[in-house]
């Protein structure tokens, strides 16, 4: 895409407003989907991109295996056993994706609750990252559940309210809807439905606060799930009192750094989609996010150590498991902390991005360690995932990337949607009606503001014509 646009120079118009810049007519849905290109041009640029060929190969192998899982059952694709009920789908897919998706509630909170409007250029990316992460975590879950068609059961058929998983199910489901609403504003702009956007803006604060509540609880709840298995998870990764806190706190740097990672990849691959506001602010925003992540990492390190000290588990540090634990902490917590501290002080954005990668790897490693690698540490044999399980995980992850890219190319995430609100003179009938209403209502109703979105250039053109 990038290459195509470069080659063609400015001859192609990218969709970033309801109306075309050149002739002022509205873009059709098809044109919006094809980014203003003709189908032929669109296909050409898609075929030119080698990444798409890699995805094509992955899907050609992965999709039939995905279908096979639902025909031949779990044992066809996994090595999950009676001793290791949870494999890659949950251990990697769900437990790793969810903390990396905590960005939605964090940036939502910073912008809408704390009033940090300087972070707004990246807020939408964080919200989208949250939504997609959760959505695909649920997709991983659907592959793992024995009877995925019964997923709504804890909501409608049978309730097990004493179970932590019940909490997880309810909170993920409600939070997913909250995130859909939060991301929908961008979609409404893109579609040209201002009414929907206005409706969401009215409830933004409510949505954001429920986002914090639901996130706190279910990020924690995922950790609390493992407190059902004392003795199965290695003591260094297990803490009855702090498990939920470990999961919740580590999701904070995890989510923030995931946003840095995604924006880094986007800057390398789709800078054409950035507007000036995003482009000029990106480095500053990256540093801001890293500052938050550093605080999160410091807190996490502290409570991790408190966790070890609280149950007096120091003796385990000297074992092989202890070395692995130290690796996780050094690589995923201490190293990024040191890198962030140096890089923020010296304003080295590239180094910050490297630290963000490390943090993301560290959080994923922690979840995989807790759910898979150190799980059943007392049993003699370890479960090695089936190759089909790995193929499905890779395929699903590729779908995630493709969907992510599809949305970033189109919706106003990296750029501002160019719109103006044009007040339209109200007719006499409406004025009459408005007078009969209370005083407070008049400003709203007299100026029956119709949202007509036109591109900035279109408007200025129309004005000069007048």
């Amino acid at each position, binding site marked *: 895409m990038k290459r195509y646009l470069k080659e063609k120079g400015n001859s192609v118009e990218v969709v970033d407003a309801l109306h075309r810049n050149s002739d002022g007519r509205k873009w059709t849905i098809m044109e919006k989907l094809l980014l203003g290109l003709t189908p032929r041009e669109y296909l050409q640029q898609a075929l030119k991109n080698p990444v798409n060929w890699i995805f094509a190969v992955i899907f050609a192998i992965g999709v039939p295996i995905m279908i096979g899982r639902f025909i031949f059952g779990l044992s066809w694709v996994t090595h999950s056993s009676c001793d290791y009920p949870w494999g890659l789908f949950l251990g990697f897919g769900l437990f790793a994706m969810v903390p990396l998706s905590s960005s939605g509630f964090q940036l939502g909170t910073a912008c809408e609750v704390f009033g940090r409007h300087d972070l707004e250029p990246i807020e939408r990316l964080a919200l989208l990252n949250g939504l997609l992460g959760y959505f695909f975590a649920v997709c991983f879950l659907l592959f793992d559940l024995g009877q995925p068609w019964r997923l709504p059961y804890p909501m409608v058929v049978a309730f097990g309210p004493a179970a932590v998983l019940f909490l997880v199910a309810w909170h993920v489901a409600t939070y997913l809807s909250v995130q859909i609403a939060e991301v929908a504003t961008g979609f409404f702009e893109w579609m040209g439905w201002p009414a929907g956007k206005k409706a969401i803006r009215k409830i933004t604060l409510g949505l954001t606060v429920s986002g914090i509540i639901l996130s706190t609880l279910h990020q924690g709840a995922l950790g609390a799930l493992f407190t059902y298995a004392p003795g199965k998870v290695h003591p260094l990764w297990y803490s009855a009192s702090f498990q939920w806190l470990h999961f919740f706190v580590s999701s904070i740097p995890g989510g923030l750094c995931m946003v840095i990672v995604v924006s880094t990849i986007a800057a390398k691959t789709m800078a054409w989609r950035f507007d000036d506001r995003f482009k000029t602010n990106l480095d500053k925003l990256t540093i801001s996010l890293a500052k938050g992540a550093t605080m999160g990492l410091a807190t996490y390190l502290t409570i991790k150590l408190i966790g070890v000290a609280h149950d007096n588990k120091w003796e385990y540090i000297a074992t092989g498991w202890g070395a692995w634990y130290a690796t996780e902490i050094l690589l995923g917590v201490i190293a990024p902390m040191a890198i962030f501290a140096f890089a923020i002080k010296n304003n080295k954005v590239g180094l910050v991005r490297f630290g963000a990668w490390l943090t993301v790897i560290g959080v994923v490693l922690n979840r995989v360690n807790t759910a898979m690698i150190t799980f059943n540490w007392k049993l003699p044999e370890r479960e090695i995932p089936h190759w089909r399980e790995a193929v499905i995980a890779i395929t699903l992850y590729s779908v995630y990337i493709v969907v992510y890219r599809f949305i970033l190319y189109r919706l106003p995430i990296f750029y501002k949607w160019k*719109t103006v609100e044009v007040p339209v003179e109200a007719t006499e009938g409406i004025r009459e009606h408005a007078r009969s209403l209370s005083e407070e209502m008049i400003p709203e109703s007299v100026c029956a503001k119709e949202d007509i979105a036109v591109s900035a250039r279109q408007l200025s053109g129309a004005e000069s014509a007048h």
Partner: protein
Amino acid sequence: MKRRDFLKGCLMCSAAAAVGTSGKAQAAGSFEGYPDAMGVLVDLTRCVGCRSCEAACNKEQKLPEPDVPFDDTSVFEDKRRPTERALTVVNRYETGGSEPVYRKIQCNHCNEPACLTSCFVNAYTKTKEGAVIYNPKICVGCRNCMIACPFNVPGYSYSSAFNPVVKKCIFCYDTRLKNGKPPACVESCPQEVMTFGKRADLVKLGHERIRETPSRYYDKIYGEKEVGGTGWLYLSSVPFDKVGFDTTLQNEPIISNVKDFLSMVPMVLAIWPALFSGIHLLSTKNKDGHDDHDDSHNGTGGH
């Protein structure tokens, strides 16, 4: 108020919407079992590893034919565990004595089962007769019960694509226990390894046996206190860790480990809205609420 009721109440609130009362859920975290709950005392010193209990279970529960016939003792070369095809298995342990020790494994029917408290659709029930039974009609297949079971008991029929279910010993509840009869394995045992009776009586009986012949028994009944007590109890001649029992289990029921988190839930629900709305008011006090938004995506004009 019983503790679990309290926890349940907290969660009920947190679930907010349409949560009906389940009515099926059991008593508190310190629940010691129903007063008339039945149990089985397994005396490992009497077991000779004939596997007739495995055969009886297979027949009673209409399980598939085993790969190795029930009179074949070559199975003892490996340590087995209950699966969806064998709800009970017997393992052999060489403990240094003249005779090996055999240990029968099946669901221990905990007083306060971890499978039950970890299940988000309440597929498990602890009956007043003492059995922990399972409802395959509502199981979603998350396998959290298998994560939670401290004895690694539940097996899962992974090979079934359309109706995989958890399989574990149900104390022959449907066919026998409900009618006051002992489970098939107990009845089939030629050595009288297992004694069926009220759990409370069995605890007394076990201690009696230890007191009468202290040389024969290791001084402990496994299952009397573990994870809040189990319906099935064990006597052994050797320390229990030598015959594959997990002796590091806590005496508290597993649900107690989750109580810190569960009690935090209503706090977050109550405090967060006020806290964050307050912060919002403070941080936007002089800026007239939302209107100072750069409101990037709603702004007039663009770049």
